[in-house]
C-alpha cells in the first residue's frame, strides 16, 4: 500500500503545482487531471489488503471465504465513479477553454484579467 499511496500524494502535489504555476489554461486542465489521478491512486491503495485478490467470486475465491480472501470492493466502486466524473468534468473544462479561445483568441489566463481601473470605477 505504502508505495502506491506515496505516489498518489506525489501526483497530487505535482498536479497542484501545475495548476498554480501554469498560465496556459490547457496546462491547468492537465494539472487537474494529474491531481485527479493521484486521488484515484490514494483511494484504491486505501482499500488494498496485502495478499488478497480482486473482489470477484470464481474458482480461486470460494463464496464462503469471500470476506477472508478479497480486497475491499467499496474503494474500487468509488474510484469507478470518480474516473467517470473526472472525465466528464475534464470534457466540460476543455469546452470552456474552447469557448474562451473563441472569445479572446488566447489561452493565457493573464489575457482574461479585468483592467484594474475599470473595476475601480464600477
Amino acid at each position, binding site marked *: 500500500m505504502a508505495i502506491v499511496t506515496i505516489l498518489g500524494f506525489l501526483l497530487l502535489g505535482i498536479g497542484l503545482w501545475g495548476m498554480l504555476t501554469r498560465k496556459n489554461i490547457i496546462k491547468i486542465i492537465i494539472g487537474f487531471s494529474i491531481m485527479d489521478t493521484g486521488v484515484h491512486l490514494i483511494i484504491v491503495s486505501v482499500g488494498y489488503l496485502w495478499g488478497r485478490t480482486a473482489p470477484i467470486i470464481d474458482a480461486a475465491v470460494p463464496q464462503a471465504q469471500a470476506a477472508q480472501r478479497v480486497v475491499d470492493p*467499496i474503494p474500487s*466502486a468509488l474510484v469507478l465513479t470518480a474516473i467517470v466524473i473526472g472525465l466528464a468534468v475534464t470534457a466540460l473544462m476543455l469546452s470552456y477553454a474552447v469557448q474562451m479561445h473563441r472569445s479572446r483568441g488566447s489561452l493565457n489566463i493573464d489575457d482574461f484579467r479585468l483592467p484594474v481601473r475599470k473595476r475601480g470605477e464600477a
Partner: protein
Amino acid sequence: MIKRLLILVAIALFGLMLLPLLTDLGPFKQLTPLATRYAEGGTGELGAANLVTAVVVTYRGLDTLGEVTVLFAATAGVGFLLRKSSRQKDEERGAADSEEAGSAGGQAGRSPFSEILSTGSVALFPLILMFGAYIFIHGHLTPGGGFQGGVVIASGFALLLAANSARRLSHGVLQLVESLSGAVYVALGVLGLVLAAGFLDTTFLPLGKLGQLFSAGAIPIIYSFVGLKVGSELTNILESLRK
C-alpha cells in the same frame, strides 16, 4: 519570486493537511465491517460474482444514478458551450460555397487521411462495439461493467471520427438512445421499489446460478442500459468537441 514562494508554501500546507492520512492509515489487516457485509451479501443476496458491480449497481445504486446524472449534466454543458451561433453557421456555409466555386483540387483545405487508418477503422469498428457490449453484459461476472463498456464503445466512435472527420454522427439518435436508456434505468429502479425491498433493488428478477450470464437479478439489465447511456453520452461529447 514572492508568488513562487507563496505557491510553495501553499503546497507545503496542503501536504501537511494530508500528512495524517499517510501516517495514521496503518496497513489494514481485514475488511471493514461494511465491506465484510457487502462481500458476504453480494453473492448471497444479489447473486453477483463481481462484488464491485454489486456495490455499484445495488448497494450504492443511488450514487450511480447521481453519477449518471452528473455525466448527463456535463454532456449538456459541453453541447451548450460548443453550439454554433447562427452567424457562425452562415459564415461556414459561405466559406464552403466559395471553396467549392473557387478551387478545383477540392481536398486542399483538409489533409487526406491515410488509407490504413480509414480501412482499418471500418474493419475494427464493429469489433470494438461488440467488445464494449460484451464488457457491459458480463459486468456482474468479470471485471468491467456499464461504464467501462460504454467507454469502449465511445472509443470505437472516436476511431471512426479520427479516420474521417467529415463523417457526421446524428445528435438526435445519440440523444434518443441516451434518454431512453436513462429512463429505463430509473424505471427499473422504481420496479425494484414496487416488486422488491426498495429503489434500485435488483432482486425482483430470479437470481439464477452464481457465475452464469443470466443471473444476479436485474443487475446485468441495469448495467447494460448504463453502458448504452455512457456510450452515447461520451460519443455525444466527442461529436461536440470534434470541431
